[in-house]
């Protein structure tokens, strides 16, 4: 699943073969499916939902930034807009209870509608400037959330009240966010193996050469940006329904931008499994820290320190580093076997 950059599935047993991989995948999926039925603890349930939201967001971020090499530090724009648009619609159309989920397509459409002009402006420039433009646009959106009349200002918005028991809330949100995360992962996997994915990675490696070889760079980048935005918008809407409130600083949170980037970097930028691994490590750790350490500043410092450690010690991420180690070991074992003959 990590693509041609790493070793193919081996025959010597250290990397699983195709059948073993399929079996492993089935086991992981089954375990994921029964997880909320076994762990009914309130805190664990909340951590599970939060983690899946971040899996979806990190995978979505990676579809654009990981594959194309253009780092976006403005994806909270889509996350927050997804949350706000369903919140505003529910309030103005007086939608109550579970009917709120009918609004989800609105979050997806909003993500796309924002991503097109955002991308058209930001993607005119090259990598360095792109990052900065995404940060600037992010701050425009936060400012709008604080100051526009229909956003609820500093008090934010409340989600419709769900008449479900706490356990039902956790379990149902778990499966909804799981569906979104799996869809994102499936899409990411399809894109990586496709012609479109190759074009994206060609842009990452050498944009001028890719363009001269006939890749329509702007269209390809914009398409990936829109796909990424749609998933992030949906994640934002589900997150809002789950925690039942959005504030300008929580919907449009600069730490969110950094967190999804950190997840992708920790796992392995531009790989399919990397952002999943990263999100599975960081999101529960962050949630657990927040629930244990009442001091949010301390967890912020720890997040920063973790980020520095990843960038300095594991610049390529867990998945590629581990895969390479395994491949090396396998090659050495094969070499030993040759020598014995």
């Amino acid at each position, binding site marked *: 699943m990590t693509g041609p950059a790493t070793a193919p599935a081996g025959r010597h047993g250290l990397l699983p073969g195709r059948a073993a991989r399929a079996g492993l995948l089935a086991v992981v999926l089954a375990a994921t499916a029964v997880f909320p039925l076994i762990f009914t603890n309130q805190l664990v349930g909340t951590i599970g939902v939060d983690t899946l939201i971040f899996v979806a967001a990190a995978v979505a971020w990676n579809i654009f930034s990981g594959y194309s*090499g253009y*780092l976006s*530090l403005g994806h909270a724009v889509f996350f927050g807009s997804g949350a706000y648009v369903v919140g505003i619609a529910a309030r103005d159309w007086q939608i109550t209870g579970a009917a709120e989920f009918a609004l989800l397509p609105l979050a997806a459409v909003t993500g796309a509608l924002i991503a097109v002009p955002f991308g058209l*402006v930001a993607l*005119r*420039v090259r*990598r*360095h*400037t792109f*990052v*900065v*433009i995404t*940060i*600037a*646009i992010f*701050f*425009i959106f936060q*400012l709008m959330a604080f*100051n526009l009349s229909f956003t609820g200002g500093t008090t934010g918005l409340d989600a419709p009240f769900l008449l479900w028991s706490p356990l039902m809330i956790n379990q149902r949100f778990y499966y909804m966010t799981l569906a979104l995360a799996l869809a994102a992962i499936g899409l990411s996997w399809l894109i990586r193996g496709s012609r479109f994915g190759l074009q994206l990675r060609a842009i990452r490696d050498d944009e001028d050469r890719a363009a001269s070889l006939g890749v329509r760079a702007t269209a390809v980048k914009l398409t990936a940006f829109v796909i990424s935005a749609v998933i992030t918008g949906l994640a934002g809407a589900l997150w809002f329904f789950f925690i039942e409130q959005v504030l300008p600083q929580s919907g449009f949170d*600069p*730490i969110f931008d*950094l967190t999804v*980037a*950190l997840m992708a*970097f920790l796992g392995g*930028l531009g790989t399919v499994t990397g952002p999943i691994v990263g999100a599975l490590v960081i999101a529960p750790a962050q949630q657990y820290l927040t629930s244990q350490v009442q*001091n949010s*500043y*301390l967890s*912020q*410092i720890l*997040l*920063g*320190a973790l*980020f*520095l450690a990843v*960038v*300095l010690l594991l*610049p390529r991420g867990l998945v590629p580093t581990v895969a390479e180690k395994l491949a090396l070991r396998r090659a050495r074992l094969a070499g030993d076997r040759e020598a014995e003959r």
Partner: protein
Amino acid sequence: MAARLIHAVINGILGGGVYALMAVGLTLIFGVLDIINIAQGIMVILGAYLSYSLSVHLHLDLFLGLLITVPAMFVVGVAIQWLFIRPLRGRERTSMSLLASYAVAIIIEGLLYLAFGPNFVVLSAPYVTSGVHLLGFYIPYIYLYGFAMAVVLVAALYALLYRTRFGSSVRATMQDRTAAMLVGIDVRRVSALTYGVGVAVTAAGGMVFGATGGGFNPNSGYDLISRLLALIILGGLGSIGGALAASVLMLTLESIVDIWQPTWSVAVFYAALVIVLMVRPAGLLGRAAARSQ
């Protein structure tokens, strides 16, 4: 009306001088190290808190305190570059260094929260609360002193860059890192010192920022960095003249818009950025122009 406009322009120019000081540091770091120092905003706030501590606990005059805080921030800058930026290698070096500086920023923000809490503080001194009537407008002394200091420091930076051997090394590194190495310039040393200088000026900028605005807290770094980034991109990344021009231009524009629309005056920054980039993706004074100076 005309009087308010003139007042807004004066305020814009005086404030622009201070922003120019902070933006020049940022664009200089970009030019030499090829990284965008996201931590510049929080460095300004750190500088302001240092000034605050010195004035509250040691009752040191704000400008006198700079003799301590500027060298201190220089050391902080060199240390951060040495520890977190210099070790980064490889193809993704630029993106990684950007993220590393972002991580440094949120660590410093967290530390400032732990040390000073979330309450807004403001730097005070006799010349902050008193002022002079100039052409019929009341202007606090700190604006004038701050502007004067910014002009002196920017001039000193120019002298450093264009009149000293170190400055030649810096400019050579900005033009072509590899060629600079080949002619015997110690690029690593130049990088560390440039980062130090770029951060050191934030101590001075931060002091004036802390004394002129409506107060600051550790969260103020975000607002600052997004403005500073907008300024250096508007001016053209790596262009010192561009950063100066953009700072004065944008602060003036903002304070004019502020007359009618106080809530949205900040948005002018970003709106101008978006518009300029649609016409000139390289900024007002693009990189090529800046580097041929």
